[in-house]
């Protein structure tokens, strides 16, 4: 009952925030002054795609883009040579290489910061492709007093490969929608890696990215918020990014995300229930999500184990006693009030997913995904979260600190 209550509360909160702000979801203030901008891009062993990224980012319609700083993390392939070739071709492009391989995105990003002297500094990654108008949609948010950073909406670039990428495509849209809703309560907890823009003063105050953290983008966001800045989310700014296509790659990526999340909560633990929305909502929300996820997993696992054991014993004894294995009584559906609460929760969750997809739909489509994919996502994909979380806690306790797959 407590579990259902907490889950219902958070879902109601999301729905209420949406209902109270739905006219603002697509809003993107037009910039009034063109400010100079540098985009920093870390690159590692991505010689095949880096050229495409550079060509793509140069297509931006934002007139203030002054520098595209590509920092090679000591690649083993010909990435650095390709970057230098593009630097010779385009005056805005600058090629750098870290003195030694850092093994994580924070290394080349921090290195690139040394060469970024513009008022605004953006970050992207080498498998993400911002739309030409993405930057110009975002910078207007940074004119608001107290706003330190703005992030974009990520769409999956390879959504139709298999059920995993289809589910991630839905997941990314739900995450972007949720992030936008959290903006309305000043609670954005991450500025994503594919495209986020900061004021230089913020990066100077925060000291850039934390090299020890596996999710340097989450850490930087929390650092920014803890310094009193606000963070915004720009729904019309779209970035297309490639996502893992195999379960192994996906699992490693999610472990990194979760371990990074745990590292961030551990680092900012003293801010719990303090320091504005970071301590009063973001941290409790993270912590409660983990507690609900893990307790839910244990509860489900216990019920499932008991169910299987019971079925096995009944079958074994029924065979021995020579009676029917299944009787009509086995199919009696007798729902309790808790069952109805669960169904209500599931229905509201599904409605929320549909609403999120509605806000990310393409032209002439209602939600843009087959119902089958949404059910696979809602039932099978989301159920993978708690085991992932548990593994992440285990790995964190064992000192896991590998970057792994992007």
């Amino acid at each position: 009952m407590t579990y259902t209550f907490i889950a219902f509360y958070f879902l109601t909160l999301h729905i209420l925030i949406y209902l109270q702000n739905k006219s603002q979801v697509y809003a993107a203030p037009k910039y009034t002054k063109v400010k100079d901008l540098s985009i920093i891009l870390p690159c590692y062993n991505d010689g095949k795609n880096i050229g495409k990224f550079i060509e793509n980012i140069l297509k931006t319609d934002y007139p203030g883009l002054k520098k595209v700083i590509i920092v090679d993390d000591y690649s083993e392939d010909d990435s650095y040579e390709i970057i230098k070739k593009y630097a010779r071709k385009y005056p805005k492009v600058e090629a750098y290489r870290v003195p030694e391989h850092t093994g994580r995105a924070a290394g080349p990003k921090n290195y690139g910061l040394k060469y970024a002297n513009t008022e605004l500094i953006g970050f992207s990654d080498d498998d993400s492709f911002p739309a030409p108008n993405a930057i110009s949609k975002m910078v207007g948010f940074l004119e608001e007093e107290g706003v330190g950073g703005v992030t974009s909406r990520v769409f999956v670039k390879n959504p139709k490969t298999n059920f995993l990428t289809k589910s991630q495509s839905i997941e990314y849209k739900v995450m972007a929608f949720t992030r936008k809703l959290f903006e309305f309560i000043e609670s954005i907890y991450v500025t994503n890696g594919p495209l986020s823009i900061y004021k230089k003063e913020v990066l100077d105050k925060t000291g850039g990215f934390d090299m020890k953290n596996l999710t340097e983008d989450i850490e930087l966001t929390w650092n920014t918020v803890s310094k009193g800045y606000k963070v915004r989310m720009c729904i019309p700014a779209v970035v297309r990014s490639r996502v893992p296509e195999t379960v192994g790659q996906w699992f490693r990526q999610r472990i990194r995300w979760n371990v990074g999340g745990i590292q961030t909560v551990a680092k900012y633990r003293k801010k719990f229930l303090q320091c504005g929305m970071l301590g009063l909502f973001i941290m409790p929300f993270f912590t409660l999500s983990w507690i609900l996820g893990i307790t839910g997993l244990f509860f489900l696992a216990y019920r499932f184990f008991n169910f299987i054991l019971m079925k096995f014993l009944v079958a074994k004894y029924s065979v021995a006693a020579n009676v029917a294995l299944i009787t009509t009584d086995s199919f009696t559906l007798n729902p309790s009030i808790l069952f109805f609460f669960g169904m209500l929760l599931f229905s509201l969750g599904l409605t929320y997913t549909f609403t999120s997809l509605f806000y990310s739909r393409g032209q002439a489509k209602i939600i843009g995904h087959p119902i089958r994919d949404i059910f696979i996502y809602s039932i099978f994909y989301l159920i993978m979260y708690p085991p992932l979380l548990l593994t992440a806690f285990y790995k964190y306790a064992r000192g896991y600190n590998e970057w792994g797959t992007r």
Partner: protein
Amino acid sequence: MLKSKKHVFWEALLITIVVFLAGLFLGMLIEAANSAKISSLYLQSEISLTDASATARLAEDISLDCEVIKEQNIIVADRIYEEAKLLELYEDSGKLTDSMKLLHKKYDLLRTFLWMTNDKSLERCDNYNLAVYLYEYGSEDTEIKATQNVWSKILLDIRKQSADFMLLPIAANQNLTSLEFLKQKHEVTQLPALVINNDKVLYELENVDSILDLLN
């Protein structure tokens, strides 16, 4: 640009509380309605049982036809059995109040009483069989739950195959003094147990044919 909207946290809490209270209230109403329905059925069963009990007493004094005693007993037992099944169904969905548990106890007492009244009838009439199935109510032990599940299936099979079979399933861990006495009398030492014709006590699962062999 954005005004503070932190009051949304309280609004969400208020809505959640209201929805939960409404849900709990509705749940209690449903359970009360189920309970009232069972109570009404119970009253009818109680009347039938009292009638059967009175008939059994008459059987001690006058030479009442054993067929009448058998029919009346089996009708009452079957009726209580069907009502108990309905009660069990409601009981599974009853999470908010204890009313169903109390009703269950009342039915167990009723069946215990029926068992007692059949003591003399069985001595005089051997035209029917009485099987008292004593089980553990609310057990959390998976092994016991599985065993009881299979016992139920076996007894249901026998009930379908034998017209002269009177089945009395009784939850035997309800702290009913009379039932405890009967358990002692028939030397029932563990649950679940099946007492056949107040004579044999079975603890291990048997197949249908073996049990049919033990009947008259």
